[in-house]
């Protein structure tokens, strides 16, 4: 157990691609925690998808032993945190386990929107922050400009920022020295009753649930009986250990230290992140301040492309949920798409990642419906209902008013794209809160309804700014909105799976787009098919699929009736992939494409 004054707990805050994982790798390497032959890029990103996308999804921790220039040996606990807004909750609990942060900024790119959100969280968590300018070896690096940005935009003193290149290994020691010299040591009392904060937990097929903890007071030892203060459950500790980044079993963890424990737990839901662990024989007086639970904000339907895969999809979702307490799912059935699941996510990236993992790790072919947000229906009888699925919209006469979630979005971009981005935000019902210029870049702060953002905001923002805009948001709360359910009628029959909830001002545009798209996706029938978008009984957009005029084969003699019949049977097979609505057959692909997020 290390003396508190020689422990430093820190996390790294950075925008995607600004070099957080590379820096982590270099720090590990420098401290000799892992041999060169074991090095692979991005040591802490375990999942393939993390490594490929260059993002961190789950929190990780690693203990490093560093002998500083003053001759003292320090225990450094690096908490690798997710950078993306969807995982803001993970960020907040990682930050709570540390006393300081490294703020890594790409010296050629400057401060980005995502950096801001995370750095403010770190400031809120009373962190000491050491700015680190990375990629100073790049020709485009502009150290003075970026320092100015850090001071102007964030308000941090950047005069003694550490200038490095994580890629080439330049000045890694400078970072380690700054951690030891400038970050505060943790406080705690080894003699006090045990208080350990659950920072994260995940399911390991061999060990069961692994719990990542930060010990605040007391000692956590193998064999001791612990109690989870929120649930009251008690367990015997099987193992206590640390990551170096390899798992290493040790006897105990003391105050200020981070590590893991296992206690024969099978279900991740028994280990509430933010809960406090104490010792059964000597209970702590009160739990440590916890975290707000994370709540899914974006919902969508996931359906197996092949109905036969339903059970497999259920199993796969269950397995994913084992490791991701923020991911929710429940059975849903749709006339168009059959049986599937309504799933809740922390945000769009979270949705994409789950979808991609299902397709990749579980080899499932999925149909994803348009994402929607959670609406609050204030009913005339005074009750409040949460609406996760437009198909479940209650009768409008029973609704007093509807509230929708709003976000505060921060967008940073080169000012040459400002006009287009302002227009986009206005089209999406945005309310401008702030517009500032820093070193050739503009920082926009907008309040936006989340349902306008989940539609195709990212894609439009990217294309308008040619990829140069960065975007981040946080939930601001619910506000009343003039929201309506837009139904789609095919041949005068409503098709529930295609209905969406939309702001009245956007309804016509969205309705027209959906009708146009469906017109191309539904094959001609023997009769003409009107496609209408309607609000209540009022039609707001209309297209018509003209009738099939002729499809008969000219020649049918030569006596080979079998071949013609087989063609007919093949045609019949094709019909099985169609969904019947009244007299109209709609191919499943039409639902997929019409409901796909975004425009083509």
């Amino acid at each position, binding site marked *: 157990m290390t003396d508190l004054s020689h422990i430093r707990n820190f996390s790294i805050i950075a925008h995607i691609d600004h070099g957080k994982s590379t820096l982590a790798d270099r720090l590990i390497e420098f401290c000799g925690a892992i041999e060169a032959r074991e090095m692979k890029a991005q040591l802490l990103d375990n999942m393939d998808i993390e490594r490929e996308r260059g993002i961190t999804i789950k929190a990780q921790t690693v203990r490093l032993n560093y002998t500083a220039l003053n001759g003292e040996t320090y225990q450094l606990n690096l908490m690798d945190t997710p950078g993306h807004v969807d995982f803001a909750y993970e960020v907040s609990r990682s930050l709570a386990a540390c006393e300081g942060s490294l703020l890594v900024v790409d010296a050629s790119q400057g401060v980005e929107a995502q950096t801001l959100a995370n750095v403010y969280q770190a400031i809120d968590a009373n962190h000491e922050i050491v700015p680190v300018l990375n990629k100073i070896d790049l020709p485009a690096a502009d150290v003075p400009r970026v320092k100015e940005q850090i001071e102007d935009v964030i308000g941090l003193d950047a005069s003694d920022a550490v200038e490095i290149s994580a890629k080439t290994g330049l000045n890694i020691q400078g970072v380690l020295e700054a951690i030891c010299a400038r970050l505060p040591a943790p406080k705690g009392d080894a003699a006090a009753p045990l208080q350990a904060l659950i920072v994260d937990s995940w399911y390991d097929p061999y060990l069961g649930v692994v719990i990542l903890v930060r010990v605040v007071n007391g000692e956590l030892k193998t064999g001791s009986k612990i109690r989870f203060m929120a649930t009251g459950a008690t367990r015997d500790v099987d193992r206590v250990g640390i990551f170096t980044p390899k798992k290493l079993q040790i006897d105990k963890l003391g105050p200020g230290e981070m590590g893991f424990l296992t206690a024969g737990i099978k279900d991740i839901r028994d280990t509430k992140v933010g809960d406090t662990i104490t010792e059964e024989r000597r209970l702590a007086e009160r739990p440590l301040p916890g975290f707000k639970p994370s709540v899914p904000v974006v919902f969508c339907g996931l359906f197996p492309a092949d109905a036969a895969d339903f059970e497999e999809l259920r199993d796969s979702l269950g397995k994913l949920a084992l490791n991701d307490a923020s991911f929710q799912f429940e059975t849903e059935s749709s006339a168009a798409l059959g049986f599937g699941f309504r799933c809740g996510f922390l945000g769009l990236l979270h949705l994409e990642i789950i979808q991609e993992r299902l397709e990749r790790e579980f080899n499932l072919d999925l149909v994803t419906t348009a994402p929607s947000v959670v609406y609050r229906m204030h009913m005339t009888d005074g009750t409040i209902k949460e609406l996760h699925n437009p198909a479940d919209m209650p009768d409008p006469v029973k609704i007093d008013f509807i509230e929708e979630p709003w976000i505060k979005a921060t967008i940073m971009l080169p000012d040459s794209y400002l006009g287009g981005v302002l227009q986009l935000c206005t089209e999406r019902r945005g309310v401008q809160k702030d517009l500032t210029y820093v070193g050739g870049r503009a920082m926009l702060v907008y309040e936006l309804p989340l349902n306008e953002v989940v539609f195709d905001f990212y894609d439009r923002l990217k294309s308008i700014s040619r990829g140069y805009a960065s975007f981040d948001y946080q939930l601001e709360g619910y506000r009343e909105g003039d929201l309506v359910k837009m139904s789609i009628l095919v041949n005068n029959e409503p098709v529930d799976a295609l209905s969406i909830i939309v702001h009245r001002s956007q309804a016509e545009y969205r309705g027209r787009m959906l009708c146009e798209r469906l017109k191309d996706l539904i094959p001609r029938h*023997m009769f003409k098919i009107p496609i209408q978008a309607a609000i209540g009984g009022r039609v707001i957009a209309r297209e018509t699929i003209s009738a099939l005029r*002729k499809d008969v084969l000219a*020649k049918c003699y030569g006596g080979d009736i079998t071949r013609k*019949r087989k063609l007919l049977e093949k045609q019949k097979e094709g019909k099985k992939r169609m969904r019947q609505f009244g007299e109209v057959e709609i191919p499943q692909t039409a639902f997929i494409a019409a409901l796909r997020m975004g425009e083509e």
Partner: protein
Amino acid sequence: MPDPGFALYVHWPFCASKCPYCDFNSHVRERVDHARWRAALLRELDWFADLTPGRRLTSVFFGGGTPSLMEPATVEAVLRRADERWGLPAGTEVTLEANPTSVEADRFRAFRAAGVNRVSLGIQALNDADLKALGRRHSAGEALGAIRLARASFDRFSFDLIYARPGQTGAAWAEELNRALDEAVGHLSLYQLTIEEGTQFHTLHQRGELVLPDEDAQADLYEMTQAVLGAAGLPAYEISNHARPGEESRHNLTYWRYGDYVGVGPGAHGRLTLPDRGKVGTRTHRAPEAWLDLVERQGSGAKPFEPVPADARLAELLMMGLRLAEGVPLARVVAETGRTLADQVDPDRLARLERQGFITLSEDRLAATEAGRARLNALLGTLLA
């Protein structure tokens, strides 16, 4: 209820050249041993006759390939053997397909003497440019000559034209149709160009070098064809076949009425109702030499017969019968499948299709309307869903 008949089809697989749109079983050979082929055709005819005792032929059709390249003696021998085995009453329709390049007055006389009483000419187009584009070896002038010769030589004759050709306009087709009507007597077959797999046209089409008129343009041409021929007194009795009443092809009606037919020669198909096995589909080996070898060794080039179960019989009966303006007698449904139509097709669906104007359903007959026939694929899809 018209008797669907009992027909004999004889396939002659050889052509002088292969047409780029044709996916029929046709082959170009420098030399054909006519005596050997004659013997083989007779032998396979005998083999099928052994399976169908007591049946009486209602038509014979020589198709191909180019059967006008057959020696008249072969045609004569086949017809004589057919008469011996099944009975071929005088006046029974005997059709031979002919190519304008392979007809001459002497040859037509010889075929006529052999027993042929109807010819069907593969004219395809009445202008030189389109004939060339279709890969035909004859000119429009030769085509007209052949038509006149056929008319002079046979009481009944028909010719084929292909339309909805690449770049064909409605006006050009109307003009060509009127010229065809000037030449036609009682029967015309008017086929829309169809791109079949395994043809040269298919390759060109895939590459985008051959562009067909779009669906609307095709439909326009089709509707115009129906109108022009109807007004001229040759209404469509089948999707692509037009005749003055009474001049219909007796042989092809057997196919469409889902009657039995024997298929002799390489790649020939048949449908037979056998006393012990019920309805079967027959087909013979496609490759001419392989077929010849099989017949000489075993008496037939037939592959194992394929049973046609009741649901397939219903599908085939409707698929063929609804091509005809006369439609399908409901009694035929019962005769083929043992069950009524209403028992096998959802009556609500029938009522809906009738309401939409695609079918007519009387007490004894189901028929597709003109609108329904044009959309027969979709119509069958709905009926047999």
